[in-house]
């Protein structure tokens, strides 16, 4: 059997059977599913602790204007007492809060006070403030003879549809928010994966070096074969983990959906909502989001993700292997890690700028340079870009990883046999030209 094949197999199997891999594989999807499911679950679940807020309205302006919260979390109770009495037996009343509205001057409302045992949430205060403001405005409008209907007719709602003109002249409805969310997720995943698995390659090299097995291995295979085998072996582990995560996340979301039918309808299908009402602006937004998702070419996105993940990882993986070979222990790697990881960090930092102008000059160059293209391209693809740019970037990335592998191999073959000497940039320079 081919020796690189043997090395890949060993790297793959020893890692896949590790406890940490199994734990990460199970925890990852739980985490992802949690991010999707928990907020919906929290939002949909009926909170049992109902908060009762007593309202003392001495102004008489706000009778019945505080509406109970739709979910039944907050209930307003109008009471007619003096504020001092209410405060005195507040602790026995089991109420959450006490809202005191004195007789106020409508042009300068002062002295509205909220009493509670603990600090109320900002959201609650905003609600109360909003209600007060609206009611006072209504009273003022009434006094100025402006009707509600008249005011409504003055307000105009404007929304802008964005349409991407495809090359075939096909119109696609685009949505910048969805595209940027998808782009961010893809870019960050690539960034994290490259670091995570790059570090694994580095630690693997250090382990072989410090346990001294490397000399036995390279009396059987060439250092280049060992390095490439390790890099590819770890890449397969990363790919396995990614695919397992995707699969398990879908599974968990679906299973959770079948247990809580509410969830499934809210999370996955906007259809029932469409039947509810036609004029709901929130609903329009939902519909445009789902159609925007249609506009994102999912198969292209996933295949590009896999390509850029592998390409970017192979490029950095070889460099991480070289860093590992030049060090005797994890702590020795610090000085070399900075130049290796700087381009990755820069590409993450510039994401916001690229988001502003996904087809601008910065975005173009960053997505062509192989060191930054894996992360930056994931940001650009959801917005759509000319095919020639995508192909050029891919070709450059392949060229890039062949180049870094060649450089890394030169450092690696000497580094793995160098013990005990402090390696600095000067020595590495010598190795490169030896």
């Amino acid at each position, binding site marked *: 059997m081919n020796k690189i094949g043997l090395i890949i197999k060993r790297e793959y199997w020893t890692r896949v059977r590790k406890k940490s891999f199994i734990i990460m594989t199970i925890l990852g999807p739980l985490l992802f599913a949690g991010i999707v499911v928990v907020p919906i679950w929290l939002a949909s679940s009926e909170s049992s602790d109902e908060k009762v807020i007593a309202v003392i309205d001495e102004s008489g302006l706000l009778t019945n204007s505080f509406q109970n919260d739709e979910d039944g979390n907050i209930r307003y109770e109008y009471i007619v007492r003096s504020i001092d009495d209410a405060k005195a037996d507040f602790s026995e009343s089991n109420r959450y809060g006490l809202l005191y509205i004195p007789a106020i001057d409508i042009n300068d409302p002062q002295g509205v006070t909220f009493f509670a045992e603990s600090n109320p949430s900002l959201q609650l205060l905003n609600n109360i403030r909003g209600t007060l403001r609206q009611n006072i405005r209504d009273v003022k409008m009434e006094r100025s003879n402006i009707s509600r209907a008249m005011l409504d007719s003055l307000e105009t709602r404007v929304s802008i549809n964005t349409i991407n003109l495809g090359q075939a002249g096909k119109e696609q409805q685009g949505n910048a928010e969805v595209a940027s969310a998808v782009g961010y997720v893809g870019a960050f995943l690539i960034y994290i994966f490259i670091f995570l698995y790059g570090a694994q390659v580095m630690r693997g090299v250090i382990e072989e070096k410090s346990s001294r097995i490397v000399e*036995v291995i390279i*009396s059987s295979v060439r250092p280049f074969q060992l390095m490439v085998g390790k890099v590819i072996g770890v890449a397969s582990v990363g790919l396995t983990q990614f695919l397992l995560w995707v699969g398990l996340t879908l599974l968990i979301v679906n299973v959770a959906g079948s247990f809580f039918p509410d969830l499934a309808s809210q999370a996955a299908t906007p259809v029932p909502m469409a039947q509810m009402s036609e004029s709901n602006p929130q609903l329009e937004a939902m519909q445009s989001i789902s159609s925007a998702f249609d506009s994102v070419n999912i198969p292209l996105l996933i295949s590009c993700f896999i390509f850029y993940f592998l390409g970017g990882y192979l490029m950095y993986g070889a460099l991480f292997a070289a860093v590992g070979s030049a060090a005797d222990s994890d702590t020795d790697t610090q000085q070399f890690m900075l130049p290796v990881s700087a381009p990755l960090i820069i590409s993450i930092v510039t994401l916001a700028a690229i988001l502003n102008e996904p087809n601008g000059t910065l975005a173009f160059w960053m997505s062509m340079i192989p060191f930054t293209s894996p992360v930056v391209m994931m940001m650009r693809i959801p917005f759509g870009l000319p095919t020639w740019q995508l192909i050029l970037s891919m070709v450059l990335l392949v060229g890039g990883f062949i180049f870094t592998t060649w450089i890394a191999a030169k450092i690696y073959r000497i580094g793995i046999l160098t013990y005990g000497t402090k390696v600095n940039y000067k020595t590495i320079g010598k190795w490169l030209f030896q």
Partner: protein
Amino acid sequence: MYLLEAQHISKRYANHEALKDVSITIPKQSIFGLLGPNGAGKTTLIRIINQIIEADEGQIRIKDEVLQPKHIADIGYLPEERGLYKKMKVGEQLIYLAQLKGLSRSEAIRRIKDWFQRLEISGWSEKKIEDLSKGMQQKIQFIATVVHEPDLIILDEPFTGFDPVNANLIKDEILKLQEQGKTIIFSTHRMESVEELCTHIALINKSEKVLDGKKQDIKNQFRSNTYEVLHLGNINGLNPDYQLIQQEDIESDYLKTTVQIPETVSPNELLRELIPHVEVHAFQEKIPTINEIFIAAVQ
């Protein structure tokens, strides 16, 4: 018949010259002691033979061919700095290393089982390396070195880490391998095992080969016509050409005297000269030990 020939090997590193025009021939079925002080260049030479690094000049010939990647399967190497994958199981690890040397999986398993019996470690297959003692790890590493039945076995300090019982076990295996026709390069600082095992030696000092050849020939080269005599009574009035080098008291009035005589004089003449003076109880030529040769050659 030579198994391996190193011809005019030179290797330079950035700051120093590791090997300077070193030529060595290693006969088939020999146990070849590669000796030299620390940093003399032994490991460099061994690494060149293993194709871990390349020589700047000169070439290695093995079995009458120029050394090339296919010869990896003909060489087994036990480096001085031992190491195995700590988290891997013994069996798996040996199979992996054997496969890297070109064995098929099934063949590797069969031979590893054989070796487990020979070294009395059956049932270790499922243990992790990190759970084994140092001596046990050494045994595993020894198996990894010889499992693919290479014609040339290179052992760098093979006995470190072994207790006397296991060291003997390994020594017997080395001799058995030699009987089977294998050639062994043996690098060590333990001169007593060189004395015991080696048929040939080469000495490298400061990147250069100082001497090489059959162990017995080298010992003969270093003979100095010196004899040890065990006797009763004092030696007085000996021929002034004969030098008394050393004299020490041995129990119950015996004396041991070391005498060096001119090259032209035979040991019989020395005996004849001694007999009138003292009662001779033992008489033998003092042959230099490898240790003495080593020190003499290096200084």
